[in-house]
């Protein structure tokens, strides 16, 4: 199982999903209408590194974070 966490203002509890790569995760997450808006503007971290390739494989125990637009300071 892959754990997915939604950071900052995305008001959603972490979920666990059974997916083999980010493409599969994308399909799962886009079923949630409220999440779609956030996915449009959010970056994706796998095991705390930002990834930019949809083919990134995911294995059991991997952690994905969804990072909405940031504003520190």
């Amino acid at each position, binding site marked *: 199982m892959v754990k997915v966490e939604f*950071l*900052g*203002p995305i008001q959603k509890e972490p979920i666990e999903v059974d997916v083999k790569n*980010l493409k599969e*995760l*994308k399909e799962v*997450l*886009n079923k949630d209408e409220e999440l*779609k808006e956030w*996915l*449009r*503007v*959010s*970056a*994706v*971290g796998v095991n*705390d*590194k*930002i*990834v*930019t390739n*949809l083919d990134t494989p995911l294995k059991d125990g991997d952690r994905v*974070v*969804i*990072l*909405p*637009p*940031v*504003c*520190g*300071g």
Partner: protein
Amino acid sequence: MVEIYKGGIPVIEVLDRWYSEFKDGYGAMIPFIGIVRRDKGIDGLSFDLYLPMLNEWFKKWENLPDAKIVMAHSFGDVRVGESSFLCAVFTKHREEGFRYIKEFVEDFKANAPIWKYDLVNGKRIFAKDRAKILKGAGLLED
């Protein structure tokens, strides 16, 4: 490692410690202190941060050959007049100090995994208008 404080940062105490600890060998210290300003009827700001990636982001600034950079940030509520962000750059000469402090703060604003909320009547409202979309965003867009 980024220093993290619940609520406002004790600015002077932290600056005092950094100044004593790091000034040897450097000719210039340039701090940047972000102060929560009264604006649009807010009572303050509030912050979420994701520490593992914040520390990861900070690593490339922590080990510069010609500068020492230190930073502190708040999580949770920070009232008007308090400080939520504090950093300082130590360099031999002022020229690289001015360059680094600006580059560092701009990179911080654009890339540090921190989320800001306005505090209005006790409610936390995401500061969407001031938020920056990260590089690579939209990867999971349908």
